[in-house]
Each structure stands twice: as C-alpha cells, then as structure tokens.
C-alpha cells in the first residue's frame, strides 16, 4: 500500500519534471521563434504528418505538405502536393538561448525551407502556435511557480508565528489574512495597471504579476499551517524538548515545522495550477506582458472573438494542452495528501 503511494508520487513527479523541462527548453523543442510571422500563412490549420504521398508511395520518414490558398474559396488553405517536406531532426533554425545564457540554434525538429511545419496551426499573424505555446509556458509556469512559492513562503512564516506564539500576534495576523481574502482583487488590479506608466518593461510586468498573485494568496496556507503548528506544539515530545531548555526557534525548526511541511508542499502543488490560471486570466484581460511576447493568457485572448471561435478551431488546442498539465499538478497534490494522511496514521 505504502509502496504504491510512493510509486504514484514518483510517477507524477517524473511527468511534472518532463513537462517543465519541455517548457524550460522551449527554444529547442519549438521549431520557430515565438514572434516569427509568416504572413502568407495566417490562420493555417495544424499540419498533418503523412507517410504516403499523393502518388501512393510510402515514405519511412514522415513528411508534411506546405499549404496554398484554395482557388476561389476565400481564406481556405489546401495542401500543396507537388512537393513533400520530410521531417528533420536536430535542424539549425532561429537562434535562441537556454536560460538566457547559452546561445543556440539547434531545434529538435523542423523541415527544410521553403517548407513550414505548424503542428498546432498558426494565429492571425501566421505565428506557429506550438512555438508560442512552449515559449508562453516559460512565462506562465514560472509566474505560477514563483507566485505559489511566495504565497506558501509567506503563509508558512505567518502561520508559524501565529500558531506558535498565539495571543495578539495570532489575532493580528489572522485578521489581516481575512482582510486579504475579502478584498475585490480584480478591480484593484485594474486600478494598479491604470496607475502605472504608459510603457512598463516586460520584466517589471512579470514581477508585478508574481507579486500581486503571490501576495493575494498567503492567507489560506497561513491558516492551515497555523492549525498544524497549534496541534504540534502541544505534543509531548515538544513539551519535553521545551523542558530540556530548547529555544523557541529550535523548537519551531526542529519539531514543529517538520510537522507542517507536508501541508506546505500540498498547498504548493494546489496553488501552482491556480496561479498559472490567475496569470492566464490577468493576461487575457490585458493586464499581462505585451505583444509579441507570448504567455498562455495571450494565446487565449483571440478566443474572445466570435469569428475566431467559429472559424479556427485549432486556436482552442493550447487550452486543451493545459488540461494534462493541471491534472499532473492535482495528482501530485493528491499523492502528497495521501502520504501525509498515512504518516499521520
């Protein structure tokens, strides 16, 4: 039983690690730069990988056809079957850098010019949706991770203080937490954005997003940690340690907080997808980083238009891709919760 749980957590963590490295190495996995426009291929549907060409010949290496405008019909594309473009691996393409440090121009896959490969289709400027999704994840995932870390960090700090010392410290911190839970944040955010100067650098917007999302959410983990600390500090071994003359700091660090650590981790796993969604919402509403930098939120912004929803179904694909990512996080939270329960038993 215990082994199976441990196993489940391990699988989930491996999946999450894979997703994050995919996003971290977006430059490598994305066939194109996120801002590269292909104006002749606006709103191109997802490319199909073929093995059999128009003449019925089988190819071992999968290939794509380029698109051309359908004659007569407005706006439609059809495959140009006169030339096949075989899928190539480790091709040289647009330059990018890994973690902003190591310049590189090798991509995992691509096709030779004049071929184009858009596995998730393109947006209204002919930009590859897959590349934008991968690059967009860098911003959205790191915003989610950092904001969740900030929230949980603050929550642990405030919760531990409140639970351990009690009294007026407890009162003040918990009332402040309630205040934070009650504020109408979205409207406050609109006001904050309006008060900022006309052009805010991208990194400033990014930090602002993290600060805002992270600061809003500390109250809930703080309450949970406070509860855990309250019960932990009444345990006999804590009383014993106190009797031996241990300092408050030592008690917190050595005996109390370890009891709360799995709560903090579970909270982290729950908050990350929530905060990714928060970043998506804010960008969707125009409060995020500007064009042409993508984030998952800006990938969804065109979906506000009826014509896009009605005509270009592949614009919904990035939303579908978010589902397994969020499920992985929730599975991680689940597995940790189960472990926590089994330890408590």
């Amino acid at each position, binding site marked *: 039983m215990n082994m199976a749980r441990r196993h489940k957590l391990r699988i989930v963590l491996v999946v999450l690690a894979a997703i994050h490295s995919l996003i971290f190495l977006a430059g490598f996995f994305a066939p194109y730069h996120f801002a590269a426009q292909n104006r002749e291929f606006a709103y191109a549907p997802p490319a199909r990988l073929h093995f059999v060409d128009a003449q019925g010949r089988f190819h071992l290496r999968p290939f794509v056809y380029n698109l051309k405008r359908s004659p007569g019909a407005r706006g439609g594309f059809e495959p140009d079957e006169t030339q096949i473009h075989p899928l190539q691996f480790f091709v040289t393409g647009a330059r990018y850098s890994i973690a902003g440090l190591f310049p590189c121009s090798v991509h995992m896959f691509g096709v030779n010019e004049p071929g184009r490969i858009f596995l998730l289709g393109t947006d*209204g400027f*002919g930009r590859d949706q897959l590349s934008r999704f991968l690059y967009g994840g860098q911003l959205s995932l790191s915003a989610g991770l950092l904001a969740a870390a900030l929230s949980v960090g603050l929550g642990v700090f405030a919760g531990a203080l409140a639970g351990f010392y009690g009294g007026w410290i407890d009162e003040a911190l918990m009332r402040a937490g309630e205040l934070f839970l009650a504020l109408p944040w979205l409207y406050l955010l609109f006001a904050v954005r309006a008060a900022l100067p006309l*052009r805010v650098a991208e990194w400033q917007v990014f930090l602002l997003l993290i600060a805002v999302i992270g600061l809003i959410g500390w109250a809930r983990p703080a309450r949970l940690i406070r509860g855990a600390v309250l019960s932990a500090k009444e345990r006999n071994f804590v009383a014993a340690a106190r009797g031996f003359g241990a300092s408050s700091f030592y008690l917190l660090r050595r005996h109390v907080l370890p009891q709360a650590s799995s709560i903090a981790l579970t909270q982290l796993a729950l908050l990350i997808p929530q905060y990714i969604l928060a970043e998506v919402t804010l960008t969707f509403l125009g409060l995020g980083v500007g064009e042409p930098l993508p984030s998952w939120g800006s990938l969804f912004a065109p979906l506000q238009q009826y014509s896009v929803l009605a005509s270009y179904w592949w614009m919904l694909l990035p939303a579908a891709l978010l589902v397994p990512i969020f499920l992985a996080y929730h599975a991680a939270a689940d597995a940790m919760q189960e472990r926590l329960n089994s330890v408590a038993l």
Partner: protein
Amino acid sequence: MGSFFSQQQVQATLIAIVLAAAATSAGPALGGFPPEDLLVTDNLPGHSGGVLSVALRSEPKTLNPVLAVDISSREVIRCLTADLIHINRASLKTEPALAKSWRVSPDGLVYTLKLRRGLRFSDGQPFDADDVVFSFQVYLDQKVHAPQRDLLVVGGRPVGVQKIDAETVRFELAKPYAAAERLFDSVAMLPRHLLDSAYREGHFSDLWPMATPPSQFAGLGPFRLKEYVPGVRMVLEPNPYYWKEDRAHNRLPYAGQVVFLFVASEDAQVIRFQSGDTDILSRFSADNYDVLEKQQAAKGYQLFDLGPGLEYNFLFFNLNDLATKNLAEIARKQPWFQEVRFRQAVSAAIDRESMVRLVYGGRATPLWSPVSPGDKLWIDDRIPRLPQSADRARQLLKLAGFNWNSSGALIDAQGNAVEFSILTSSSNAQRTKLATLIQDDLSKLGMNVHVVPLDFRAMVDRLLKSYDYEAAIMGLVNGDTDPNPAMNVWLSSGGTHLWHPNQQKPATTWEGEIDRLMEEQLVTLNYAKRKRLYDRVQEIIAEQLPIICLVSPNILVGAKNRVADFHPAILDPYALWNVEQLYIQ
C-alpha cells in the same frame, strides 16, 4: 452654385420634382391647413406594415439632435427628424428635402430656401420658417455647444438666418463657401412650439432625454417615438404627417415599426443577426463577414461589400511643441519624428498589403493618402503607391544620419537606440493588429517598437490634451465626400490636427502651405479648381507624412432577404439612410 455639378442640372431636377409635387398635392386641405407640398420619390410602391429590427451597439444617450454626438443617438435621431437640404447617400449629391428649392446669389453669399408648404411635425403642429429660424438660432448658440456649430461658422462669422415669409428663409454667409448647400445635411429642424420656452429659460440641454414621453417629442422624420424600454429597446412608429410619398401616392414610410435593440458587442450583434433576431446589420468586421457569408443562403440574408468607405487608418508621431510640458523623454525622441526621411522610412517599411489580408481578410484597400478610393470625386490618382521596401527604408534612414550597431539595432547620430511606443485603442481589435504588424515590420529596420493598447478615452486624452505619447494609430471617418468637413483636421489651427493640434501659427512651411490651400478651396466655387487645390494638399501629406496612411476598410452591411429596396451606401448612415423606403416583403 459650387461643387461638382452645374446649376442647370440642379434646377432641372428641381423643376421636375416641383412639377411632380404640384400634380399630386391637390388633395383635400385638412382641418384648415393648406394642402401639403409632398415630395414624390421615384421608387416603386412597396408594402406597408411589418417590423424592421436593427441592433444598436450602445443605448442612445439623448434624443436631442443638437446635443447628440454618439453613433447610436444619431442613428435613432435620423429616423425621427429631417433636414432642409439632404445629401442623397446613393448619388452623394444634394437633393431637396424640407426645402423644395433654393437659389444662390451670383456672389455665392446668399442662399434663399423655399420651404414645402403645409408640412406638419409628427404631433400635427405646422412647420414653417419660424421653426427654421429657431432651429438655427439654437445650433448657432455658443452656450448650447452643438457639434454642428463649427460647420455653420463660415469665414469666422455664424451663418445669418432671416425669415422672408412663412415659406422662405434667407441664409447669408460672410464669405463664399464651396458646396455650402451640403452644410444643411443632418441639421435637423426643431419644433419651436415644444422647445422654445425651455430654450429661453436656459435649460435647452435638459431637453429630450431618453425618457421623453412620446407626446413631448415631435420631428419631421419618417418615424416618431412609440416606446422606450431602458436597457432593452426603442420602438418607433410611422409619422402620419411625413412629407414623402411614392409614385402611387402612398405616403411613406412603409414599415409599421422600427425596433432598435440594444446589443452591447459586435459579436453579439452578429450572432443575433445570424439567428434572425435583427433584419439589418452594419459596422461589423471582415472576420465576421466571412463567418456570416457561409450561411448566407441557408439563413436567408444577404451581405454587401460596398468597397472602401471614407474611413482612413493611419500612424502618426507626436510633433507637438513640448517646450512647456514636462515630457523630456518624448522631447528627446522628437528629432527623429520631426525628420521627414524618418517618417518616409517608416512608411516604406510598412507592409500595407499584409494589413489588408491579415487584418481585414482582403476587405480593405491600402492607402497612401487620406482620401480613400471610395471618394472618387476627390482622390488624387497621381499619388505614388509605393510598395513595401526595407531597402528604400534603410537608405532613407542612412541619409537622415541613422546607423546600425553591431547587434543590428537602429541608432541615431548620437548613438541612441531608436525605441518608441505606439498607442492604440484597446477596444479596436483591428487597429491593435495593425500595430502588431507595424511592430514586426519596423523591427526589421532595427527599431524597438512597443504596442500599448489603451482605453479609447484615455488615449484621446493623451493625443489632444497631455501630448504624453510618442506615436499612435487612429482612424478618422470623413463626414462627407467633400473636403470641407475635414478642415479641422488639415488646418494647423484645427482641434483635430492630430499630430500638432491648435497651433497659433503653422509650425512648418508645409503646414502653412496646407493652410493656404485649404482656405482657398473653401472659398472657390468651381469644382475643377477646388480639386487642383485639394490634390496639392494630398500630395503634400503624402510627401511630408504627418500621418502615415495605412488602410481603408470596406463598408460591410447585411440585410435579410425580406427587406426590400435596401441600398446601403458608403456615407454614414450606411444602412438606414432610406429607412422610409424600406419595406418587408
């Protein structure tokens, strides 16, 4: 008689209409009123009755024609009121309306208008010269702040209005004014008997709010007020005293009701039109046109692409004098913006064909001057339509002293990297898309451009008041095919001379030249001479590029097949200009 058609022509049509009217107005004189002098239209008789429903983007703000500035209010008011001389939206020429004929003195300074006899407001009260004099008194009253007032001030003096007799009114201009009869279009005549006392007591601006009861409202338009449900709809019914009839002497309008539904977004309007809730749709994007087009036959409606309208979208830089403003960062960049070769390079780098294709789905026309091909009488065909060329742009920049650093970024002579932001209205998805394309085009020249979408009102505030911006994308719609309503845009002293409004004296020699040309065309009565002057204005703008024109979107309109006699036009209002003739089959 000015403008582009001869006096003889107008007189000939007038005589024809007067004769036709005389032949038909021998009906019985009701209740002691003189027989009505009706206008006989040349359309075939239609069917009476039926409901015509149309969606408005926002709820109208007022029913007062003198105060209305928003599109929705004006759309409704046009159905409720009438003007003396009207611009026919199909022919784009003036035609008699409440005035059945007019005479111009040889010096072009005095217009004498003859009113139709025996007309009545929608509440049954008679209409005569006193109402005309009263209406113009209100429009010209500075305290009322009518948006129409600007156009009615000619040569620095308001138009003089004088009653000769109950059916004759004399208008005096301080200076000759080209196409002056076009000024009368959309200046709605007001009922003196309802508004006079409130006007004298000084609260004209409180008159005719949306909640006005139908009995308190009267106009000379084809319809009159029936019901207003706040937040939902406004219902109009036919005006029984309307002054037009068809060839078979049926009094217009035909529709038994016009219902304006308030539908807040373009997408929602498109969906309601698609589902059959509304009969007519205008002001929608090319993307939605493509969506609607697929179901045209199945859903029983027809779409019309009327080609380029009178809207022009453009990019412009902040050329204001910022000496008194605390905007050092923008002032530092102004030497770039003031360099004409910089502006020419930007224009050369912009891919207008892509804009037409990607932003408007092909339903637009690239522009190199503010006059769109929709305005056939005034466009200067000799303006070169230069294709996009990054090489030409680079040459121009080099000539202007710019250079490129090792990483490919454009730098000025002092070594500063060229970086600026473009404002766009966040509510206009098309213009934001234009900005993103420009951003990409200019990045190929090594310019670092940021797109800043802002709330429209906040943006206009920056453009016209604080001057706190570097560049912006805007669109203007000419109110008429004639150049006169655009005076305010081209004169250096104009309030909508966007790149540098309200100048005391022209800041540059070419702006001085434009001022002189525009003033001259205003008092020139001969069309060919005016055209030469206005052509020169267009050439100066194309050369100096105070505004870099981008595209003119096509006018797109849709109507259900059951709406007959539907003839959309490129001049606002696109769809409902002949609402009195529309009928349900």
